[in-house]
């Protein structure tokens, strides 16, 4: 059986759901199909679920929403020697319930008329002579094919759509962070704060985190660069960190995954294809955050794809507007963050321990990231070349 659609979105995470929603919003007359490999949108959760306040509000109102697990008003940086630095920032962000949040975004696309197919994966695709893509679908009911004018690949770190379309989606191992996370219950922490700890022995090349879901319950995880690690894998590093920091915590579901701490792939489009979100490496390489990035890219992809279909021109040249607009919105910033990440890699635990002590000399109510940075530049001149690499 062959279905025909105008826009086929592969992967119903935040990028895909927003792409489908925006496509239907911008062009209600076009057919939009949204594929999800898993039986339910939003499962399994492979995410620390933290998101910035301002970015989230461009897409949804978190106040009182069932998908917003916790409002975060404080950030606590923890140095390798366990010195805590409480940073005073207002309106930091939210911890989401991704199962509910992803379902909310997908339902919103469906409410506008997008067709959602769950338990259905794309198994491959080929370009037809008329410029459409023929995508092989595989699901519980067997195989089918779908012909689409534009395919939007929002299939996450696996990025099979980009690969099938001939885009370069490979990642050097130095820029892949291996992550592991448990939901931990019965531990003591400030439920309005997120905690981030750095250290070569804790999470080499990355950081360990605690993101509260409710008092006493948190996502506790870490990401590391395997090339810098000893023989242990990410889950073993995490087990050791939890045993030391939260020995009484009860570990529930473990999830693992990869975060690409690189920059946007060189080309995010080709004839009849756009890729967005993790699939296009649209992740802040410093923080590893990708949810808002994915939603912004999805919105752009939905808009550009429908505009191209309306004009009857889905060529790579027409779709390249998506790439240019993404780079102007966020992609160029990620290049800067990536340079900063590489510069920070040269600093050792001793530096971060002493930076934490410097930061704690600032009065708590004035201890913003900006002030810490200004203080740090004065007291730690080795930071000046690092800062220079960010701004140049």
């Amino acid at each position, binding site marked *: 059986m062959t279905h025909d659609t105008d826009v086929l979105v592969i992967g119903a995470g935040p990028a895909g759901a927003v792409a489908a929603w925006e496509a239907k919003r911008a062009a209600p007359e076009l057919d939009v199909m949204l594929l999800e*490999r898993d039986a339910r949108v939003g499962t399994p959760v*492979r995410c620390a679920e933290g998101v910035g306040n301002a970015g989230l509000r461009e897409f949804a109102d978190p106040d009182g929403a069932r998908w917003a697990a916790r409002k975060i008003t404080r950030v606590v940086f923890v140095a390798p020697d366990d010195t805590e630095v409480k940073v005073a920032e207002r309106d930091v962000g939210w911890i989401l319930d991704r199962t509910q949040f992803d379902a909310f975004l997908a339902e919103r696309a469906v409410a506008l008329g997008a067709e959602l197919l769950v338990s259905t*994966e794309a*198994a491959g695709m080929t370009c037809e002579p008329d410029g459409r893509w023929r995508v092989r679908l*595989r699901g519980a009911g067997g195989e089918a094919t779908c012909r689409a004018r534009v395919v939007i690949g929002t299939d*996450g*770190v*696996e*990025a*099979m759509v980009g*690969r099938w379309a001939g885009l370069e*989606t*490979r*990642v050097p*191992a130095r820029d*892949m962070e*291996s*992550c*592991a996370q448990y939901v931990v219950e019965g531990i003591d922490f400030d439920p309005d704060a997120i905690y981030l700890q750095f250290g070569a022995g804790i999470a080499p090349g990355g950081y360990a985190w605690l993101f509260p879901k409710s008092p006493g319950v948190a996502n506790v995880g870490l990401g590391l660069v*395997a*090339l810098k*690690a000893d023989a242990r*894998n*990410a*889950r*073993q590093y995490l087990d050791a960190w939890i045993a030391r920091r939260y020995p009484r915590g009860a570990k529930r579901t473990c*999830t*693992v*995954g*990869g975060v*690409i701490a690189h920059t946007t792939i060189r080309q995010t489009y080709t004839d009849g294809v756009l890729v967005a979100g993790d699939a296009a490496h649209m992740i802040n390489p410093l923080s590893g955050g990708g949810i808002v990035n994915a939603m912004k890219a999805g919105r752009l992809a939905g808009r550009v794809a429908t505009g191209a279909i309306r004009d009857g021109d889905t060529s790579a040249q027409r779709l390249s507007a998506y790439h240019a607009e993404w780079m102007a919105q966020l992609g160029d910033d990620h290049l800067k963050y990536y340079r900063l990440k590489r510069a920070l890699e040269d600093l050792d635990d001793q530096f971060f321990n002493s930076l934490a002590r410097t930061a704690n000399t600032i009065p708590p109510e004035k201890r913003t990231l900006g002030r810490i940075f200004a203080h740090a530049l004065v007291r730690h001149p080795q930071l000046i070349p690092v800062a220079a690499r960010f701004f140049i």
Partner: protein
Amino acid sequence: MLDAPHDGGYRSRMRAAPAFPEIAVVDLQVCDRCGLCLPLCPPEAIHLELTDLVVDRSTCTGCRKCIAPCPVGALTMVSA
């Protein structure tokens, strides 16, 4: 004279066969299907299907780039 492509497409033909050829295999009991190894594989030999993660024996070059990053240690090398 031949122009070598920028992606080094001729390189694999020039390289000598390893003395003890090995390929990566996935322990499906341990694998969490997270997909992290896919973009790490230079010859794109790893595929994630609905239920299984598969290494293509004929494409895997035994480079080991996927082994250490696996967060649960599900990938190991075996003799080809």
